[in-house]
């Protein structure tokens, strides 16, 4: 247990809020842990018994888990743009933190972290005694090296936009062999979450030269034996992994894992899992509705659902006509019959959205009413905007995302009474990604992120020069919104933070550039011989303690 002096002062405020009923226990746990308290201590403070996995004799060691998943061409982990390769290689290399299925972030390769009262100085203390699979010791040099890779423009990592917004290379200080201090340019509380973003794998500073596949030296429970692009990825258990099982022996329980690239077609993968030829389907980068539909009633299959912040974004470029006029944007948003869209596009497997990019599972979420389908009001708005005879618009969608196509088809029908005549322009997925930031109207998939601030900082602000940031696909920048978001980034008190989010959400709903009809559920799909697998909103495969029933 930490001394009272070491506990961040804000934790006492959080405890007070918890007792007054302003915070749920889950929210208290999240914030206390973020402020450097251990999950066990935070649980005790919240009056909860810390859930410990009781080792049962029933757990069997051995066996190889076979999963279907794309084996893509990858070199630098910081350049990952898909979750699938991270799921394969996260078994070999690990992260400084981890965010569990309940959206609570814990230390991982870190022993703990401490944050200054102004949320600008983060002291990261590393676990000692961890070794890379080539025998090198894990030290602060590896953390400094890895973070510099994230911030290196030549590497081109998506973490540059995320972490680079508040941290520069000169702000990373090695303050001991096992300690690193981060001096941020501005207050930020999502630092631990960012350290678990899928491209943030910790690299070995002594051996990494740009291609992880050539020298796959990580701290994880498995070693990389085979990685053949388009074919398979084979992982083998290492015997000196730093995490111990509840029986005192090293994890993992399984002898190995094998990922087989079965292509993008789901039918053969469904047939393979039904026949027991594979044990799971990695759906992290796939739609999954067909898999869910086909397997939901199969007694041999476990389907673990997770509610998420994943969505399909109806996005409008505000620097292009007619979307530069907020009345036209609002008209299109009003044409979303959300209940119908969720029912038809995603078979009711999710939650209805409110045209602001904050999901109900985000801790900062401020409850808002679901906007009603209102073609009459939409028609009136179009008339006011100078389109009394309606408007012809093209919407770009990938034919590869079937739920997106269904969404567009429902929208087309429901927008017709308002005078919005939508022509659906389909294209292959690769073609959509070539122009996703360029089209004036389109539907873009956005993945889950654990905090509301993370996605808002990524897509709805401008950089220091005043230009929309790289992933701001709608070019929408609002002065008041940016100021409020800046304030939210440094606000710890959850009530205060939620108050800011109430305003942020309202601004996006009133004059924003996006429509969000629904938030998607995702599913971890395994055969029932796979034991103790847990669902995750990003479908990260955290499989250290997974074992196979014989």
């Amino acid at each position, binding site marked *: 247990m930490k001394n009272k002096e070491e506990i961040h002062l804000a934790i006492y405020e959080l405890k007070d809020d918890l007792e007054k009923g302003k915070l749920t226990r889950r929210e208290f746990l999240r914030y206390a842990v973020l402020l450097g308290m251990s999950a066990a201590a935070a649980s005790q403070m919240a009056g909860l018994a810390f859930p410990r996995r009781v080792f049962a004799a029933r757990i069997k060691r051995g066996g190889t888990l076979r999963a279907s998943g794309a084996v893509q061409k990858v070199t630098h982990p910081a350049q990952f743009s898909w979750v699938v390769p991270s799921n394969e290689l996260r078994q070999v290399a690990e992260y400084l933190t981890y965010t569990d299925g309940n959206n609570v972030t814990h230390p991982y390769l870190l022993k703990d972290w401490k944050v200054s009262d102004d949320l600008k100085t983060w002291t990261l203390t590393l676990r000692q005694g961890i070794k890379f699979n080539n025998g090198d010791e894990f030290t602060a040099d590896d953390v400094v090296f890895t973070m510099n890779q994230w911030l290196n423009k030549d590497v081109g990592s998506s973490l540059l936009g995320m972490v680079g917004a508040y941290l520069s290379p000169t702000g990373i200080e090695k303050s001991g062999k096992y300690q690193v201090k981060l001096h941020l340019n501005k207050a930020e509380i999502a630092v631990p979450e960012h350290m678990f973003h899928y491209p943030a794998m910790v690299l070995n500073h002594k051996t990494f030269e740009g291609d992880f596949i050539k020298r796959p030296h990580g701290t994880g429970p498995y070693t990389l034996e085979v990685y053949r692009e388009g074919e398979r990825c084979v992982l083998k258990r290492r015997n000196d992994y730093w995490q111990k099982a509840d029986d005192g022996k090293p994890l993992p329980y399984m002898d190995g894992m094998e990922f087989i690239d079965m292509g993008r077609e789901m039918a053969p993968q469904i047939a393979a899992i039904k026949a027991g030829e594979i044990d799971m389907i990695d759906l992290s980068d796939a739609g999954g509705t067909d898999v869910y539909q086909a397997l939901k009633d199969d007694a041999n299959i476990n389907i673990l659902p997770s509610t998420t912040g994943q969505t399909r974004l109806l996005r409008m470029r505000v620097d292009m006509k007619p979307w530069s006029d907020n009345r036209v944007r609002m008209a299109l948003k009003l044409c979303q019959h959300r209940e119908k869209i969720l029912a038809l596009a995603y078979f009711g497997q999710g939650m209805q959205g409110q045209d602001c990019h904050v999901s109900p599972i985000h801790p900062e979420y401020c409850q808002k009413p679901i906007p009603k389908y209102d073609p009459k009001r939409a028609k009136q708005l179009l008339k006011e905007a100078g389109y009394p005879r309606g408007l012809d618009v093209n919407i770009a969608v990938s034919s590869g995302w*079937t739920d997106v196509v269904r969404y567009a*088809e429902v929208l087309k029908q429901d927008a017709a009474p308002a005078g919005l005549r939508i022509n659906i322009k*389909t294209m292959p997925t690769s073609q959509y990604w070539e122009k996703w930031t360029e089209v004036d109207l389109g539907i873009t998939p956005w993945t889950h992120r654990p905090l509301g601030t993370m996605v808002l900082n990524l897509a709805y602000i401008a950089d220091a020069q005043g230009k929309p940031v790289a992933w701001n696909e709608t070019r929408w920048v609002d002065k008041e919104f940016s100021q409020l978001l800046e304030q939210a980034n440094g606000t710890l008190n959850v009530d205060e933070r939620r108050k800011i989010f109430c305003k942020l959400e309202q601004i996006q709903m009133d004059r924003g550039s996006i429509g969000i009809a629904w938030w998607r559920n995702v599913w971890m799909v395994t055969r029932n011989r796979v034991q103790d697998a847990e669902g995750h909103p990003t479908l990260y495969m955290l499989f250290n303690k997974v074992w196979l029933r014989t």
Partner: protein
Amino acid sequence: MAVSKEVSASNEVVVSPGRLRRLWEGLSILFASKTAMVGLVIVLFWVFVAVFAPFLTPYTPLEQDWKAPNHGPTSKHILGTDELGRDLWSRLIYGARLVLVVLPISEDVWLPGGTALWGVLVALLVGTTLGLIGGYHGGWIDEITMRLLDAMMAIPVILLYLLIMAALGASAVNVVIAITIVGTPGIARLVRSLTLDIRTREYIRAAETRGESPWYIMFVEILPNARGPIIVDAMLRVGYAIFAMGTLGFLGLGLPPPSPDWGSMVAKGREFILAGSPWAALWPSVAIASLVVGLNLLADGLREESMRYQ
């Protein structure tokens, strides 16, 4: 006036029985072949449902019933509903219209003649012209034209379709353009080989001696005498064009949604086959297969009978 009336009347008396006789001869070839008759019945069925589609269903092909997606056949929806609750029978017969009866230029503008038929017609016009010119003139025009068309034929057909559609974008007119580009080399080769044979005949020499223009000789003397194989080939090509439409629709490059395009109906419906709702994928697959088989039977029967007849 009186003279012209007489001429006109005499023409009618002389020409009409000739045309009727030729038509009857053509039909008798058709009726003589059981294969051709089976094909004709299948094709006529699809033509009938396509032409009279609005009278054969109470639903439009785009009408969504969000309370009834993926239903099997019922008395309300005889073939069931698709993933958006749209009536599958309506989508199937309106899909036949797109293939055989109408070419949608935009949402509101339509041309008579189906997308597949237009594709084959334009390919016939272009291919026949190139084949006639190449075959009749010979020389460097023939060499350049044929080498270019050979180069096009060397590219796998599906790849060529994908390249064209990816470059042009998904629309009915672009499907016609793609069918034309892919179909032209084969037709040009066929017409050229027929022309090379026919241009050695006596009546072509006679026409040349009369001083007829090359265009007259190509289109009035040669083309009518090459029509038999061209018609049979065209029928087969309509089948290929329907397959091409289905393939492009299946790959998401055909007619854009929510068009009742058979290929895209299969593509969308297959997501639900393993979930126990095979109907949305089954019916358009049956439609494509039956229409193509019908056209092939018709063409095969005609070819066999006309060869026997000759």
